[in-house]
């Protein structure tokens, strides 16, 4: 049985209607520039008894990612159509480690406080990923997640 989506997609392709817009193709090609060679991907993990996304008493949303002995806790708030990210990486990955908060259009590099905290503000909504660069070790990158305004 062919899924309806594939079936209709095949008809649409055959009809030549609604071709892929050039900006969508260009964005797909630009994705390659976001490659982090040798990165280990951190996947969402449950926080205590809850799921990977938890709302805290202040209304912020928290999400946890784990890989290669590193845990990222990200707190996302949305205001005026822009995204603020406050995070903590645990255990502290070392003094020379830095965090990149990446979106398809913008990468902000942040130093990590002694307690593992970092923050980035005024990000555009859409796809987001956080990378921890550790000297002498493979970078750890969270899975890309989509943040809505």
């Amino acid at each position, binding site marked *: *049985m*062919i*899924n*309806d*989506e*594939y*079936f*209709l*997609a*095949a*008809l*649409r*392709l*055959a*009809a030549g*209607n*609604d*071709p*892929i*817009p050039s*900006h*969508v*193709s260009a*964005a*797909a*090609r630009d*994705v*390659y520039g*976001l*490659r982090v*060679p040798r*990165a280990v*991907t951190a996947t*969402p993990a449950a926080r205590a008894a809850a*799921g*990977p*996304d938890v*709302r805290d008493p202040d209304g912020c*949303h928290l*999400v946890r990612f784990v890989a290669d002995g590193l845990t990222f806790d990200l707190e*996302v708030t*949305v205001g005026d159509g822009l*995204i603020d990210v406050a995070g903590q990486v645990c255990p502290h990955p070392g003094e020379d480690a830095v965090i990149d908060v990446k979106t*398809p259009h913008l990468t902000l590099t942040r130093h990590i406080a002694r307690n593992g905290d970092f923050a980035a503000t005024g990000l555009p*909504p*859409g*796809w987001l*990923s956080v990378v921890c660069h550790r000297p002498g070790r493979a970078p750890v*990158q969270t*899975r*890309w*997640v*989509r*943040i*809505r*305004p």
Partner: protein
Amino acid sequence: MPEPREPAELVTAAADGDRTAWDELETRYGPRMWAVARASGLSPSDAADAVQGSWLRLLQHLHTLRDPAKVGGWLMTTVRREAHAFLRKRHDVSPFDHDVLTLEAVDDPDPASAVLEADGRRLLWKQVSALHEPCRTLIQLVAIDLGNRQMAARLGMPVGSVGPTKARCLEKLRTLISSQETAQ
């Protein structure tokens, strides 16, 4: 003109830093991914996000795809799942897309996506031409995304009949394709 590279070769080359391989993957599969996202019912802007998200997923899986030769099917299944996650999030207050968060990468691409290959599309269109009216015209109008009201006017039928007729015609087409597949 160099021979087009095999999908597995493109995946390996892209994983090793060859940008032209990535561009070739996009040229080959981008239009199909767009068609799947739009056929799943996403608006153009959500479809653009779903397609971009699927490429981001591939970027993180270039080294770990179980069968790089099936990267086309992997991308189609991924964009379809992203589209479903987008559609489900509409009543969700969290800024995170829960389904996107928990979505695992697909190990086994959906074999039904083969209908999107050039051969599959040719066969599909051939079967559409074999349908009787009004199904033949109706399916052609579905393919160009005409609304029910315009379809009713073109087909000379009441607007209320378009939906049920469309469902019957799609079912006939499905049956034709299934019998063709069984005969092969």
